[in-house]
């Protein structure tokens, strides 16, 4: 009987781990490219664009991720209610609200949040490339787009790897925050099983999972750093 319960617990936690991994990889998939235009916007010579991007970065980095998760998940519903109170009913928003689910809300909130941090890392990397690299590219006839993608970006990647490693490790742990909007990821499952079994084991297993996951992340980044160490 007891044994059965533990098997069930392990199975549930495995499912939770898969959800955590999905959140992790999907967030990276969206945040890594999304951060590039944000970094560009922040560095733009257009003051309006640079200023509004900066305000966006300040808000995203200046408020709790947990709060952002709540806003993204509950926001559309609250908006529909607010519209109704104002005497409006717009089909599109009703549709959006009925379609709205916990999981995509979690991915969107995390992707926006992480793209803000990534963008600042990219910006630091891009601004650290010496002016001489741009000048050499220009006199050789490279266009600004070629210069960015062939000359600047590859060097930026090398420079930002350590800082990105830090953020990605944090992301593994931050996936646990989405339990606030009821996504059944690993920590949420562990908490449920812990109260059900009156056992510390689920929490311990969850801890081991996060630890192993981050061990993998550290190894991957160490490998990447080594791979990029053929020049300096």
């Amino acid at each position, binding site marked *: 009987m007891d044994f059965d319960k533990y098997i069930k617990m392990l199975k549930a936690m495995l499912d939770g781990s898969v959800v955590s991994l999905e959140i992790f990889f999907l967030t990276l998939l969206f945040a890594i490219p999304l951060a590039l235009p944000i970094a560009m916007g922040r560095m733009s010579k257009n003051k309006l664009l640079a200023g509004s991007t900066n305000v966006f970065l300040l808000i995203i980095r200046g408020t709790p991720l947990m709060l952002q998760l709540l806003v993204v998940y509950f926001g559309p519903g609250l908006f529909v209610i607010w519209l109704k109170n104002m005497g409006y009913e717009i089909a599109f928003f009703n549709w959006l609200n009925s379609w709205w689910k916990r999981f995509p809300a979690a991915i969107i909130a995390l992707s926006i949040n992480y793209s803000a941090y990534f963008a600042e890392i990219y910006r630091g990397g891009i601004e650290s490339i*010496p002016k001489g*690299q741009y000048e*050499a590219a*220009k*006199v*050789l006839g490279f266009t600004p787009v070629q210069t960015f993608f062939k000359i600047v970006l590859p060097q930026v990647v090398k420079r930002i790897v350590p800082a990105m490693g830090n953020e990605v490790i944090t992301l593994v742990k931050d996936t646990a925050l989405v339990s606030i909007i009821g996504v059944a990821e690993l920590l949420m499952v562990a908490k449920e099983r812990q109260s059900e079994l009156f056992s510390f084991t689920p929490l311990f297993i969850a801890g081991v999972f996060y630890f192993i996951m981050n061990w993998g992340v550290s190894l991957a980044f160490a490998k990447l750093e080594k791979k990029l160490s053929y020049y300096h």
Partner: protein
Amino acid sequence: MENTEQEIISIKNLRKSFGNTEIIKGISFSVYKGEVLGIIGPSGSGKSTILRCISQLETVTDGSISICGQPLVTDGVYVPKNQRHDIVLKSGLVFQNFNLFPHYSVLKNVTAAQIAVLKKSPEEARQTAMELLERMGLANKADNYPCELSGGQQQRVSIARALALKPEVLLFDEPTSALDPELTGEILAVIKELAEEKMTMVVVTHEMAFARDISSEVIFMDGGVIIEQGNPVEVINNPRTERTKAFLARFNN
């Protein structure tokens, strides 16, 4: 009327200010095909800025520049952007601190622009690059990265990189200033060889003996104006103006 020489660079009344400070105060000169123009003068006299204006790294405040008869800027008004790209390829610039691309191998430093800008095939670009590296005595370093080379070797790679685009004129911005005296010689030898092959060049340098030996003409600049201009032996060995004499006193004793 005998002038059948092709004018490669023509500069008229060039002026350049940074903020309220005028760095170049109305300079005119021409460089003809096969000529080597040496530009000497104290630091801050505007020598490098002239090269940077020709290479479009700086925007002139006033005056005219044409390269191979093609105007880049006329009385301070630039030609449209799409025409400037062709003009930038007519000159090659060798920087004081090389500015090689550190993430590219020596070979790729020399082939990258040929492929991306001139749209040459990788094979063709490689062939051109290997010939140039051979000439620079660096064929065996083709697969190395810039960080694995000495300063002199890096500068030779950057000369090969500039030559790979077959520019009409090569501009050298103090090519030996970042090198220790031992390595200076190897760069000067390369430039000398190019001069013997009748490559048109403008060389900004602090190496007076070198400027005298390779130049067909020398310009001495100070405070943003040309103080003296002419035959290199005349200017460097028998300067006419007091300012040039004072500057050269350190070199001629």
